[in-house]
C-alpha cells in the first residue's frame, strides 16, 4: 500500500494534461536535445499515440533543428503542426452519393463505442440538410437496443425499420434496404450490435449483412463507418485492422471527445491505415456531432485547444 501513496503523489504531478507537461518541460526555454525530446516522447505516449508513433513524432520534431532555446508554446505549436500534417488527409466529411438512392451507411464497432448515438446524430444532421433518411435497427441482440434507436428515430423524424429482438440482423437489413429503396430515400443508416473484433462468429455476421445488402445493390454498403471511443487505447489498432478486413470499413467516427481522453491513437491509425475520419462526437445530444478538423484535433491533443 505504501507505493500507492507514493504513486498517488507522483500522479498528481504527472497526470496534468499534455500541454501543461510540455510547458513544464520547456519552462524558461530549453534546447531541443535528446533529453527534452525524450520527455516530449513520453508526453505523446500519455496522449495514447503509442510508443512507436510518439518516437517518430519526437524524431520529426528534432529534425526541425531549433538552433536556439525554445518555449513550451513553440514546441506545442510545432508538434501540433506535425500531427495535423499526418491527420490532414483524414479530414473528409461523410458525403452522400446523390446517385445512390439510398446511400447505405453501415455502422459497426465494439460494444458501447457510440454507434447508435452517432446514427442519431448523423440522422439529425442529414435531416437538417433536408435529406430523407431511414434507420435500420440491426442490433437485435442487446436489450432495448431497438427501443433506443426508435427514440432516435422519433427525435430526428426518421422512419425506423425494426423487427423483434433476436431476429436475424441480415434479414432485417435486407428489408430495410428494400423499404428505403422503394421510398427513394437519400440515406439508410444501419445500426449493428456491438461486437469485439476477436469474436469470429459475430464478425462473420457482419460479412453476412454486407453480402445480403449487395443482393439489392451491388455497390452497397457505400460507407462502412467504424465508431471508436476516444477513451480507447492501443487496441484500436486491432479493431481497425479486423473490422476493415471483415466488414470493409471505409471511414471512422471518434466519439466522447467531450471528456479528458483525446483519442490520440487516431494519429497512429491515420498513419497506418489512412482511413478518413468522417465525424467526431462531443456529447450525448443530437447536435453533438462535428466535422473532423485536423488542426483543431492536433491542437487539442497538445493542449493548445
Amino acid at each position, binding site marked *: *500500500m505504501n*507505493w*500507492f*501513496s*507514493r*504513486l*498517488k503523489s*507522483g*500522479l498528481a504531478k*504527472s*497526470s496534468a494534461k499534455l500541454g501543461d507537461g510540455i510547458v513544464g518541460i520547456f519552462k524558461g526555454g530549453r534546447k531541443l536535445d535528446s533529453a527534452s525530446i525524450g520527455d516530449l516522447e*513520453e508526453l505523446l*505516449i*500519455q*496522449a*495514447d499515440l*503509442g*510508443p512507436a508513433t510518439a518516437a517518430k513524432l519526437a524524431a520529426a520534431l528534432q529534425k526541425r533543428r531549433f538552433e536556439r532555446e525554445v518555449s513550451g508554446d513553440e514546441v506545442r505549436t510545432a508538434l501540433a503542426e506535425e500531427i495535423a500534417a499526418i491527420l490532414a488527409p483524414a479530414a473528409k466529411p461523410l458525403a452522400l452519393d446523390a446517385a445512390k438512392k439510398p446511400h447505405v451507411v453501415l455502422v459497426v464497432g*465494439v*460494444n*458501447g*463505442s*457510440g454507434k447508435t448515438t452517432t446514427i442519431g446524430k448523423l440522422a439529425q444532421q442529414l435531416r437538417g440538410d433536408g435529406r430523407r433518411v431511414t434507420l435500420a435497427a440491426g442490433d437485435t*441482440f*442487446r*436489450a*432495448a*437496443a431497438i*427501443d*433506443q434507436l*426508435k*427514440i*432516435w428515430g422519433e427525435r430526428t423524424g426518421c422512419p425506423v425499420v425494426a423487427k423483434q429482438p433476436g431476429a436475424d440482423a441480415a434479414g432485417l437489413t435486407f428489408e430495410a434496404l428494400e423499404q428505403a429503396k422503394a421510398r427513394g430515400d437519400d440515406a439508410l443508416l444501419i445500426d449493428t450490435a456491438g461486437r*469485439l*473484433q*476477436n*469474436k469470429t462468429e459475430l464478425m462473420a455476421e457482419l460479412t453476412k449483412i454486407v453480402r445480403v445488402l449487395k443482393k439489392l445493390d451491388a455497390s452497397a454498403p457505400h460507407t462502412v463507418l467504424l465508431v471508436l*471511443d476516444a*477513451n*480507447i*487505447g*492501443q*487496441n*484500436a489498432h*486491432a479493431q481497425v485492422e479486423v473490422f476493415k478486413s471483415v466488414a470493409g470499413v471505409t471511414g471512422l467516427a471518434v466519439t*466522447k471527445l*467531450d*471528456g*479528458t*481522453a*483525446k483519442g*490520440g*491513437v487516431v494519429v497512429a491509425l491515420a498513419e497506418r491505415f489512412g482511413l478518413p475520419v468522417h465525424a467526431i462526437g462531443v456529447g*450525448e445530444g443530437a447536435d453533438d456531432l462535428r466535422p473532423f478538423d485536423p488542426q483543431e484535433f492536433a491542437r487539442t491533443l497538445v493542449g493548445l485547444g
Partner: protein
Amino acid sequence: MFEGLGGKLSAIFDRLTKRGALSESDVGEALREVRVALLEADVALPVVKDFVEKVRVRAVGHEVLKSVTPGQQVIKIVHDALVETLGAEAEPINLRAEPPAIIMMVGLQGSGKTTSSAKLAVWLAKREGKKTLLASLDVRRPAAQEQLRVLGAQAGIATLPIVPGEPPVAIAKRALNTGRLEGYDAVILDTAGRQHIDDALMAEIKEVKAATKPVEILLVADAMTGQDAVTMAKAFHEAVDITGVVLTRVDGDARGGAALSMRAVTGRPIKLMGVGEKLDALEPFHGDRIARRILGMGDVVSLVEKAAETIEREEAEKLAAKLQKGRFDLEDLLSQLRQLKKMGGMSGLLGLLPGVAKVKKQLAGAQIDESVLTRQEAIILSMTKKERVNPDVIQASRKRRIAAGSGTEVSDVNRLLKQFMEMQRVMKQAKKMGAKFGGQMPTPEQMQRLQGQQMPKLPPGFPRGFKF
C-alpha cells in the same frame, strides 16, 4: 582451517556459476523492454515509471535460475510484481450492512454499467442466495431503464418499476425504500454514464451516495481503456470514494493495462471482470491472467516457472534420495536453510519435502523469525567440511571456535546440533518406515503419521504452537 575456507569459497563460486545474480545492466536491459510492453498494453506512463523502478530495486541481485537467461528472470520478477500489485486473489463483494446492502455502479458512458449491474445481481442470487433488486437511475440514455428492465426479466431478477420523469436521486431513494419494505438483501443502483469532468453529473452521483450510503461503489471500466484511465479513475475516486473496480470486456483481446493504472491510482481492488455479453459472463478478478496479458510475455513467464519447478523437483528428489539412504548431514541442512531464505520462508521449503504439502498452507500465514535462519546458516558456515559431513567430531573446543566464527554463543551451536540429531533420527525412522512399505518412500500420509509420533522439537524459527 584451510579446508574449511576452501570449501566455503568453492561453494560460493559454485552457486555463482550455476545460478548467478542479476546485475544492474541485466536488469536495466530487460526493463527497457518491459517498459515498452507495458506502454503498448496501455498502462499509464506514470504508473509504468513507478512500477519499473519498484521492480528494478527488487530484481538487482536476485538469483537467476538454472537454464533461464537473466532477461527471462527479470520478466518473471516483473510478472510476480504485477500479480502482487493487481491482487492475486479477488476481493469479495461486500454486503456487510444492514439490509438492503446498496451497491452503486458508476463510470463513463458505454463502459458496461447496466450489463454489469444485471450480471452482479445474477451472481449474488446464484452464488450467495441473495435477494437482489435492480434499479436504473439512467434517465439520460434513451431506453436505458428499459434495457435494465429487460435484463432483469431475462434473468428473473426484480427491477424497480419505472416511473417516467422521476429524477435519479428520487429513484435511488425509492429503490432503498422498496428494498427495506420488501426485504431485499441487496439493491444495485445502475447509474447513467458520465464524463468525470461533467460537474453537474458528478454532483448527482455524490447526492445519490449521500442519500443511500452504499457499501460498495464500483467503478465500471472497459479493459481497452487507454492512458486516460488514470485521470478518469482518480476523478471518480475523488468524487465518491469508490470501493472497487469492475473490469469489462476482458473477453476481448485488449492487453488491459488500464487495470494496473486504475488499481495503482485508486488503491482499490479490481473485484470482478466481465467476460462476455451474457449475464453469466462475470468472474472474480484473476490477477494472474491479467498480469500475463498486460506483460504479453506469458511464454517467458511459463518458461521460468517451469525451470523453477524443475529445480524444485530436482532438489526434492536429491533430498528424497538422501532420506532414503538415511544420509542427511549438515551440508544438507545448510542448503535447506539457504533454500528457505531464498524462498522467503518455511512454507516454501516445506513444500519441497514430501508429506508436508498440507501444512504449507497453515504456515503461510504464520510469522516466522527469519533471523534465526541467518544465524543458523552462519553457524554451519563456520564449520569445516569434515564437521558438516560428520558432526560427531564437534566437541567442546570446536564448538567454541564455531560460535566465535559465527558470532553466536556455544549454546546456539548446541541447539542447532541437537535439532540436527533429532532430525536425523526422524530421517532414519522414515527410512525404516520406507522399508516397511516395500522400499518405497512413505506416502505423504504415512510420513505425516510418522512425524506426528516422532517429530522432534521444532527449530526456534517455527511458529509457536505449530503441529504437524
